[in-house]
């Protein structure tokens, strides 16, 4: 008999965008499914608000719709709790990830800037300001929930000032912190929940660039909500108002050109544009026409390029996941008759999985390409990435399995494999326990 140990609920169909924002967010939290980051709704929404004076108005509106940050909370919370079940190793992992997550969770852009410039003395002040901002920004119903987690977060915000890349100091209260957070989420009412998403967005949106600017290569740890924000919304959705806000902050001058290029290349008769496809198309276009791009003076910094590559990967993964939805319908017991349909489902899954594998490989290539000094540093990062990609991609394709296996061997992990399996099983159990809190 098939064990029922899978704690993930059924994947929900993509939600109709006309639903109440809070219920969408709740559904996302309950399912821990990726939010509909790339929905046309968000694009339209961004267009609507693109005339707004301040970016915060835009972010607030997104947060109010509850479309961005739900999964960020849920996936991180599950990750933390799953780690907790994994014994001592899991605890270390949880310490690392929880610290990383929680420090970002309530960081203001100011705090990140303070950290990025290594002004250690300024960190405490920034934290203090952040605390008051948080308190001021949130409705009372949320404040109490957030406050319960806040005290344990402060320490990690301070640690963040030293480094976002190294393992944070042992966090004795990690379990308390995680459960406080879970409780805080659980105790929030509908309005409060939306409010907390607001808070998350306020502090998540901006740090991406700053964090990657440190050249850490931590792209895959970029909050997916942020990547989604970049990929699905402003930059490639045609919301020039948002672009202007980002340009002010990050000198994303190249983006306007990209948007212009895309606007002219998109078939005007298409009613719905898919931001994912456009993003990927742009990426491909750039990669294929490196010299032409360079001639026009496009220039990404490393961090911008990394954010771009991460966003493309995120878009690909989203599309690939989205494409499996029809397979799910086919697989409905009432519909799935005969081997032919079954074969089709399996083939579809295989293709999809290959695509996901490629997406991961490509991002790994992009990350390594950023650090390839064997290719001249003088050339534009786009060109460098392109050149490095040619060198690296094929070898990653061939050798990543060797790398990983050797890496495992180097750690003695094969010997710990049995223990890991127990940890994984315990982790899923712990995560299942966490579900009620997240709800």
């Amino acid at each position, binding site marked *: 008999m*098939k064990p029922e140990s*899978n704690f*993930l609920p059924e994947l929900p169909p993509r939600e109709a965008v006309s639903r109440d924002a809070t219920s969408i967010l709740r559904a996302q939290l309950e399912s821990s499914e990726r939010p509909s980051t790339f929905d046309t709704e968000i694009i339209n929404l961004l267009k609507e608000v693109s005339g707004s004076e301040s970016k915060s108005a835009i972010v607030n509106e997104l947060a109010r719709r509850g479309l961005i940050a739900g999964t960020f909370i849920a996936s991180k919370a599950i*990750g933390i709790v*799953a780690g907790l079940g994994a014994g001592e*190793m*899991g605890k*270390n*992992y*949880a310490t*690392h*990830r929880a610290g990383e997550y929680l420090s970002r969770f309530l960081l203001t852009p100011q705090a990140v800037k303070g950290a990025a410039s290594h002004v250690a003395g300024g960190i405490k002040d920034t934290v203090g300001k952040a605390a008051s901002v948080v308190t001021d920004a949130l409705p009372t119903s949320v404040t109490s929930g957030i406050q319960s987690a806040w005290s344990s977060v402060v320490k990690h915000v301070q640690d963040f000032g030293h480094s976002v*890349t190294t*393992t944070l100091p042992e966090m004795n209260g990690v379990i308390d912190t995680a459960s406080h957070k879970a409780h805080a989420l659980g105790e929030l009412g509908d309005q409060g929940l939306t409010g907390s998403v607001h808070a998350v967005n306020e502090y998540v949106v901006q740090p991406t660039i700053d964090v990657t600017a440190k050249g*850490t*290569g931590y792209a*895959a740890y970029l909050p997916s909500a942020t990547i989604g924000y970049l990929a699905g919304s402003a930059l490639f959705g045609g919301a020039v108002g948002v672009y202007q806000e980002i340009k002010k902050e990050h000198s994303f001058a190249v983006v306007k050109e990209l948007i212009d290029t895309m606007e002219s290349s998109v078939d005007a008769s298409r009613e719905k544009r898919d931001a994912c496809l456009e993003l990927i198309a742009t990426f491909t276009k750039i990669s294929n026409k490196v010299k032409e791009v360079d001639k026009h003076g496009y220039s990404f910094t490393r961090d911008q390029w990394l954010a771009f590559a991460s966003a493309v990967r995120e878009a690909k993964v989203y599309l690939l*996941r989205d494409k*499996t939805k029809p397979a799910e319908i086919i697989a409905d*017991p009432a519909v799935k008759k005969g081997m032919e349909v*079954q074969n089709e*489902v*399996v*083939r579809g*899954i*295989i293709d999809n*999985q290959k695509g996901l*594998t490629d997406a*991961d*490989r490509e991002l790994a290539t992009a*990350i*390594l*390409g950023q*650090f*390839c*000094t*064997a*290719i001249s540093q003088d050339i534009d990062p786009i060109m460098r990435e392109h050149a*490095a990609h040619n*060198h*690296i991609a094929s*070898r*990653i394709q*061939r050798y*990543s*399995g*060797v*790398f*990983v*296996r*050797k*890496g495992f*061997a*180097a*750690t003695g*992990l*094969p010997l710990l*494999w049995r223990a890991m399996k127990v940890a994984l099983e315990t982790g*899923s159990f712990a*995560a299942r326990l966490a579900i009620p809190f997240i709800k």
Partner: protein
Amino acid sequence: MNEQNKQFNMIAEFVDDLFGEIGIDPNVSDFDKLRTTIEDRVIARVFLELVNSLTPQQAELVANDLSVGEKENPDAIFTKLVKEIPNLQGIIIGILAKIRLELIAELRVISK
């Protein structure tokens, strides 16, 4: 059984356990292909996360080794550097736990 086979079996075992849990029938069409594909998927994810865990200096070493070192043993530098990643075991557990959830969600349709 040599060392490499043992290492290989570790990932294969992960996938086998996963298939068992989801309840994928070994007689399903293209089962072997599916299995290989999923193993690749797991490897690619672990690789991405490990690359992502390297410091810039380490990443530079790996990137340069990959881009110019056609003749050398491809795993030498990476193997050395991976050992320096803090809390590597915890990270790998986390990666496997996470991709396990993803795969369960993506593959369970086959078992229905």
